């Protein structure tokens, strides 16, 4: 009879202790879960930031691509204009040089100076105030207006 009573006392004590431990464990788990939730929230916010940055990067790539395409097209146009200048309306540059030697020599040398300046600009030389502010045909560098005169709009 005493054995049974002892067993029951042990059983109840074990149950109480077990219950106590279980509650402690639940509290501990709860704290961990709370910490996890905070970490998850922070991870989500970081992910959002990452996505935002990726969007910005895509936009920057798109802009850079468009700018490069625009530059290539403008340079192609400059080259086509140079071709036109030599052969405009079936113009024979050689014949013109025989007829108006001095005038053509002057034009050629001016053109050569302009072309040399274009190479300087293409290699990274900064634009002068005069080049930046040029808006008229008489003010621009006709060899490469797309890179030498950013404010010039062909008319």
């Amino acid at each position: 009879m005493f054995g049974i009573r002892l067993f029951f006392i042990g059983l109840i004590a074990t149950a109480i202790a077990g219950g106590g431990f279980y509650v402690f464990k639940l509290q501990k788990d709860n704290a961990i879960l709370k910490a996890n939730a905070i970490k998850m929230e922070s991870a989500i916010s970081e992910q959002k930031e990452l996505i935002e940055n990726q969007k910005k990067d895509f936009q920057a790539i798109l802009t850079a691509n468009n700018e490069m395409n625009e530059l290539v097209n403008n340079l192609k146009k400059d080259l086509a204009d140079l071709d036109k200048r030599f052969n405009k309306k079936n113009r024979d540059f050689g014949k013109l040089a025989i007829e108006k030697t001095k005038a053509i020599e002057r034009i050629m040398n001016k053109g050569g100076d302009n072309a040399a300046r274009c190479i300087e600009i293409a290699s990274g030389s900064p634009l002068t105030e005069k080049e930046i502010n040029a808006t008229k045909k008489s003010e621009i560098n006709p060899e490469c207006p797309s890179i030498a005169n950013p404010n010039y709009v062909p008319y």
Partner: protein
Amino acid sequence: MYHTKDKTYRLAWIIAVPLMLCLLLSGCAGVKTLEIFKKEVPREKLNLEKPTPLQMEEIYWHIITSENAEEVFKKLEESGIDPVLWGLTDKDFELLAKNFARIRNQLKITNDLLDKYKEYYEPEKKKDVKDGE
């Protein structure tokens, strides 16, 4: 009496076994702390100096025709310049001008491409933010 004792033992086991099992299982299936590893080391900037822009020499083009050839050579001699000229036909001059224009275009594209890469991978703005931090 025996009958009651047996019943009590059985009841005790019925309560004790599931209770111990519960404690055992819940002890194993604990909630683990979430570990997030994050280590970002920014790459060092290349920071190469941009090449110095070219400074072109001025050259003078002479146009020589059958009519002015003598005059041109005479002027050269008078100016103390050797009376010798390298010649191009009008067509070759045109081609030379176009070739130079192509080289110029390529130079501009390459230079701008370099600027775009630098702007994308090493933006000044981010550097300022970091400095501010």
